[in-house]
């Protein structure tokens, strides 16, 4: 099983654009399973025209709840809670605010009268859909909810199992932005991390941070500079950095409204772009294919 993960650090650099284009090109020669691991704001489906097959409820969050009948109002839960989740009102009634509760259950263990229970709730859902490029696993964490690392793990695990069952050996994962738990969860098991960045101060800054995360997991990285001619001096600095870090530059895509318009069509940009842009994406795919099958 080969797993290619597309990440960026900074949002808006073109991760999903590149993922969709790779899905289009790779699917011509490989059977693929696709994962949209950006469960907070899942956008890959907007480019792949999926046909929905199945929805699964996601229940990972649990919170602590106080049973008022058993509560003796000793206040130990409030003392023990490190997340400011326990509220005491003017009658000394103790309640746990679920939006602050992290589910650590410290209060449950500390409660002398066993008045606290663990309660699960549904905090998202995930889907399996069919697309022309391969089966897509994607998800939506309900707004305001936590644990998006777990949901990322869930869809990746299911995608892997599905791929194995169907004798598919290539998983393409559109990763989440940032460097926190969702990115960590997306990284596990990846054979290659393709970092899509842009030649801006912010893009460069975040690219270095996300590269550090990938390295933490010992995943080799390659670089794609999107909107590459937006700022030639930052571009040069990035290329210099890539050379110093021995990071292969898999592609450089110019800032061009043709690409933005191609995207607005709701398909991978490679479906409507012609030369020279199509070739750029094709070369990018070939560089990645070479890297993972060497």
């Amino acid at each position, binding site marked *: 099983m080969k797993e290619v993960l597309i990440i960026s650090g900074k949002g808006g650099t073109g991760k999903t654009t590149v993922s969709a284009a790779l899905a289009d090109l790779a699917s011509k020669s490989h059977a693929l399973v696709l994962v949209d691991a950006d469960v907070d704001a899942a956008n890959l489906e907007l480019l792949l025209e999926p046909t929905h097959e199945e929805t699964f409820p996601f229940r*990972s969050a649990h919170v602590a709840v106080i049973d008022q009948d058993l509560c003796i109002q000793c206040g130990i839960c409030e003392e023990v809670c490190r997340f400011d989740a326990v509220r005491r009102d003017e009658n000394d009634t103790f309640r746990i605010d679920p939006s602050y509760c992290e589910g650590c259950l410290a209060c449950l263990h500390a409660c002398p009268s066993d008045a606290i229970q663990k309660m699960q709730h549904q905090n998202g859902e995930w889907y399996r859909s069919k697309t022309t490029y391969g089966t897509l696993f994607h998800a939506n964490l309900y707004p305001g909810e936590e*644990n998006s690392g777990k949901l990322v793990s869930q869809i990746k*695990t299911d995608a892997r199992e599905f791929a194995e069952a169907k004798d598919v050996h290539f998983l393409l994962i559109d990763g989440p932005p940032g460097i926190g738990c969702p990115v960590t969860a997306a990284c*596990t098991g990846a054979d290659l991390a393709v970092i899509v960045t842009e030649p801006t101060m912010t893009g460069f800054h975040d690219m270095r941070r996300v590269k550090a995360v990938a390295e933490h997991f*010992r995943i080799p990285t390659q670089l794609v500079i999107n909107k590459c001619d937006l700022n030639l001096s930052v571009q040069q600095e990035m290329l210099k950095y890539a050379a110093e870090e021995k990071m292969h530059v898999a592609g450089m895509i110019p800032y061009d409204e043709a690409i933005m318009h191609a995207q607005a069509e709701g398909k991978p940009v490679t479906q409507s772009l012609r030369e020279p842009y199509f070739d750029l994406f094709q070369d990018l795919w070939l560089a990645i294919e070479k890297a993972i099958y060497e």
Partner: protein
Amino acid sequence: MKIAISLDENKGLDSQASNIFGRCNYYLVFNVEDETFTIEENPAKSASGGAGIQAAQWIINQEAEAVVSGNLGPKAYDVLAAGKIAAYRHNGGTAQEIIKAYKEEKLECLLEPNVDAHSGLN
């Protein structure tokens, strides 16, 4: 001595093995001497995080001395190494086939039996 094998399904010894360590569906624990076995749901499957750690802990608690699965994350590796559990990687097949391969020492070894944790891993 007992070995643990990660499984996709529960069909006794004909179950397809899984190459996912932390979040596989089931674990088979096989007693090599008397050839008895149990298959249980993997309690780590629904963990929020640290599933590899939890699976490794469970395998240690079962008093298995070896596990056969897929690749191991660094944390799962550390737990198994600390517990002096050997780890092997299989190339697919049923539990029955993997047990045979284990006995014939044909499996790829990821973690030697009875070796201390490598330094340099977290």
